[in-house]
């Protein structure tokens, strides 16, 4: 590139598109099934809870980030909570982003390998996918944000197709009665939803310095969160109506099974190819921005400015390795998501914003 090297800029519209297109892909992947197992026919209320929850966290992050213009969360952490704890938090965030990216990669690879390309080696799909993710990271957040616009457009097209197909299957009996099992399972499902959204919310704190009009970043973020939330809540409702809560709970990757049981007349009778090509954009945007955040967090801990190729390649290898080692065994991956991940994710995605807010208020910055 011969053009003058400018600082990346994300317009506010793109920021909203970015937030919404990274919000919904992973949660419909594995989240649907897990939440159905937790809350049965009330899982969609859990989704709404998750959105409310993450809206609050997003506003905290935007508020705290506004106090440190031009700085990412990793950069202002040491100033707020002290040098060593700040760096430790930065490292934690870096690992958290890496984990989010790994999950995103693993979920997509599972979709491909379990439904469409059952005989292709897991490693091959992983390697190619990670290569594309690294290509994106190399281009940086500006390009990812631009792609997120296409991603959200593809998501809307896909949702519209699913909506058309579910029209003939609308069956409210499968959602009623509301609050069937009481509030506790719904709260649990809400936490699960938030633990899936968690890494994506913290992305806001990482890309906030790149947003064009930072003072007005709250509105696109909220709009993006709501749009993404509507997308996946709609998807949950569609799952419940078409398949019913028990089948949704039975399935490991419920979103693909929804697509397996839909058709728009007999001429468009299988959606899987639409799903993997349209949903894929958001998925890759998500994997790309999470990996970018992991790389950036790592570099900022050590005070490096420009993204260099070594850290991208290292992260790519780490990502591929993690996916291959921990996600090749689907049962292990699922058990991890269903069990420990909640407990790991919850302290990070709620703990860090609340901690930073507290420090911010104490130090009156």
């Amino acid at each position, binding site marked *: 590139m011969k053009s003058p090297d400018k600082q990346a800029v994300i317009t506010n519209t793109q920021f909203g598109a970015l937030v919404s297109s990274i919000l919904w892909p992973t949660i419909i992947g594995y989240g649907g099934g897990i939440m159905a197992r937790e809350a049965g026919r009330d899982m969609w209320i859990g989704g709404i809870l998750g959105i409310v929850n993450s809206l609050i966290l997003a506003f905290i992050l935007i508020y705290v980030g506004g106090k440190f213009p031009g700085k990412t969360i990793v950069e202002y952490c040491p100033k707020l909570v002290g040098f060593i704890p700040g760096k430790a938090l930065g490292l934690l965030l870096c690992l958290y982003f890496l984990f989010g990216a790994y999950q995103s990669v693993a979920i997509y690879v599972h979709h491909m390998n379990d439904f*469409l390309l059952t005989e292709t080696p897991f490693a091959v799909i992983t390697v190619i996918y990670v290569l*594309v993710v690294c290509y994106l990271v190399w281009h940086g957040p500006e390009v990812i944000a631009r*792609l997120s*616009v296409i991603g959200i457009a593809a998501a809307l097209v896909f949702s519209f197709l699913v909506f058309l197909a579910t029209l003939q299957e609308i069956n409210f009996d499968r959602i009623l009665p509301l609050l069937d099992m009481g509030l506790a399972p719904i709260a649990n499902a809400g936490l699960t939803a938030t633990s899936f959204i968690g890494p994506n919310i913290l992305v806001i704190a990482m890309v906030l310095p790149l947003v064009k009009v930072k003072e007005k970043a709250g509105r696109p973020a909220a709009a993006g969160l709501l749009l993404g939330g509507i997308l996946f809540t709609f998807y949950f409702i569609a799952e419940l109506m078409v398949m019913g809560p028990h089948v949704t709970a039975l399935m490991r990757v419920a979103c693909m099974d929804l697509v397996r049981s839909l058709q728009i007349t007999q001429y468009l009778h299988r959606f899987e*190819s639409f799903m993997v*090509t349209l949903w894929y954009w958001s998925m890759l945007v998500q994997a790309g921005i999470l990996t970018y955040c992991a790389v950036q967090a790592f570099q900022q801990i050590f005070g490096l400015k420009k993204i260099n190729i070594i850290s991208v390649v290292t992260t790519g290898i780490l990502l591929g390795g993690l996916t291959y080692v921990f996600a090749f065994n689907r049962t292990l991956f699922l058990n991890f998501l269903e069990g420990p991940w909640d407990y790991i994710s919850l302290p990070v995605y709620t703990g860090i914003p609340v901690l930073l807010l507290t420090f911010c208020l104490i130090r009156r910055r």
Partner: protein
Amino acid sequence: MLDFFRKKKHISIDKTAMSGEGNNKPCMEGEITQVPLIDVTSRDLQQTLRGTKARFSENIDYNISILTHRLPSRELLCQRFHIGTLSQTRVVMVYLGDTANPGIVSEIKDRIGAIKTKTVMDSIYIERNIEDSHISPFPQVETSQRPDVTESALLQGRIAVFVDGSPDVILAPTTFFDLMDTPDDAYMRWPVAASFYRAARYIMFLIAASLPALYVALTSYNPEMFPTKLLWLIVASREETPFPIYIEAFIMMGIIEAIRMMMIRIPTQVGATIALLSGITLVIAGIFSNFIGAGVVVIATLSMISSFGIPNFDLRISIRIIQFFTVSMATLFGIFGFAVSAFAIGAHMASLKSFGIPFMAPLAPLEPSGWGHTVFRQSSETMPLDETYKPLPAKGDFDEG
């Protein structure tokens, strides 16, 4: 309207700074001779039913005189260069001083000035030297032979580069939507129809890039995606054929390219007929003797037809080559390969910049205000102007503290 005035004011300050070299004279004041209208043989790359029939010729003075005739404004500025140590070819950069982005103007000026060559045979050499990325399959400048296209480009704040001896004028910066634009859209009376044809061209672009790949991916990896009856037809047409579908696809795409080249080479009087005849003969004989399945023929021809929906020659050629890439990926990894290649191309297009303007603007940095005459065509009495070519915020906007 407000923006227009703001921009004008904003730039008029810079103009004085820019014209320090004294070369930025209004075109009208230059050593322009009104060359009498030369009969230009019609070689229309951008034919329209309506609109001017005038085309640029190979004489640079004549070309600029057409432009000054169309835009007799003192804001129409010319920057003159002599490029080529041997040829000293005259190269003129033309822009509207009050609308063009001064950053882009100086960038192009620098890039043209930095060209080291013995001779400039055609504007393509200038084009290659000033482009951001010449590895990219997508052209980052537009070329046109039409004075009206050039005029409208100048009004948008773009910059035209004339090269002596070449009828093709370079218009820069260029976005994807400029390349997909035809003068027909602007001259069409009803905006709904114009928008419809524009949208149709985008769909044709997608079909040209991806249909053969999708076909290969679905037939050889996931036949379950086809509706049953369609699948029966495909299977029935392939019952006796010897080659796998992807090889058929490559063969067919190759044949189409060959026929296309043949049509260019053979003298025009008989070219079309011979190409038509040979194509039909090949395909029909191939299908009837079961060398090749009918499905592939349909798909490859459809993608060829669709590729002609792309008005820009360079973009069309790129898409035809990209099609080979997507088919290869689909051959290797099925629908996953297709999705990966589509995404890789999308990511490349989103990352590409033409003189600092994102290639996919105003779609992929989303600026819905600019859609009126790019993605679709707005209904308006005057030509709509947008802010696609407005300068990006400079580095100073981001304070490090």
